[in-house]
């Protein structure tokens, strides 16, 4: 289970946690809190090649559809099938059971350009001002 401290974050509130050749992607606890009750999730299909910053998943809450972006470029290897049955996992467990998809990063160096947890916390504080 990736902890927030072990993840990298985007300014659009996705987290990514590398493990071996692939990396797991989800939305941050802050994001799920702001989006409120998630009722639908669409994850990208395995095999899809995405670029960093590309919209590749959609989450719906309260009649609002939110685009979710790929934190890094790569090939999608798996979507979280459990979310089709229980999309509220995104709210209940954003860093564990509520992960969205896994991808194989094209260039692991792209991860270095993302925020670590402390930097993300600072980013949230600055955005709230």
């Amino acid at each position, binding site marked *: 289970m990736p902890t927030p401290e072990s993840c990298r974050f985007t300014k659009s509130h996705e987290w990514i946690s590398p493990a071996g050749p692939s990396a797991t992607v989800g939305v941050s606890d*802050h994001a799920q809190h*702001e989006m409120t009750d998630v009722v639908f999730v*669409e994850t990208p299909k395995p095999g899809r090649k995405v670029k960093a910053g590309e919209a590749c998943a959609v989450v*719906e809450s*309260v009649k*609002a559809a939110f*685009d979710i972006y790929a934190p890094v470029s790569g090939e999608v290897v798996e979507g979280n099938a459990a979310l089709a049955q229980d999309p509220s996992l995104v709210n209940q467990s954003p860093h564990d059971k509520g992960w969205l998809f896994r991808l194989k990063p094209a260039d692991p160096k792209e991860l270095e350009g993302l925020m670590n947890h402390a930097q993300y916390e600072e980013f949230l504080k600055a955005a709230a001002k």
Partner: protein
Amino acid sequence: MLGVSLKAPALDAYGQMALDEAVLESASGEPLILRFYEWEGGPRDPMRPHGATFGYFQPYEEAVRGLESRGIAVIFPVARRTTGGGLVIHDSDITFSLVFPWSRLASPMLVYKGMHRGIHLGLKGQGIASRLWTPPMPSAGPISDCFAGPSPMDLVDEGGRKFLGGALRRHKGVGLYQGSFRLEGFAASREVLKRAILDGLSLEWQTAFMPKEADADLLDTAARLRADRFATDAWNRKR
């Protein structure tokens, strides 16, 4: 903040969705872009609507069943929106969209409430009473028919009848709101109600919406999006 009231030619439901997408894709959040839909084919009635739209996650067959259950023959465009929510039948409603800045991730309920609070005030300025609906208890998830009953922060009349509902999308820090205002029960004219919507959104966003014609590039982009996505089975029947 600057605002634009975008004028565009009459379109069908696929074309309306495509034009909203073209506007959203080209927008940075400022100016705000308000558009009242013009529908192809002249005045319609509940049994012969211009078209219907349904939420991004809604199954196509569910939308069609919702229409057929009212005895409506589905001989018009039924278009999947990029926004959430449920089925909306576009007959004589005032349909409109607003593209707005949504840079900081904020609760969609707050955004939705702000839109409808503004329109409530616009209506009040025309002497028309309305209120934001709040549920007696927490709501029970998504509904398949937008006007089957009010959702939190929809606008209802004094009798509790929902007349304004909407749906949202957030894309690259810019928001799209698509709204449907039902005219039944109002003595005021369509033009007065459109004025109230415009005035209310002006108040909420502290802007004046300056009229502007949609340019050829934007309409070309919308036409391409209609043909390539919004009028295709791959999009509308994707689930």
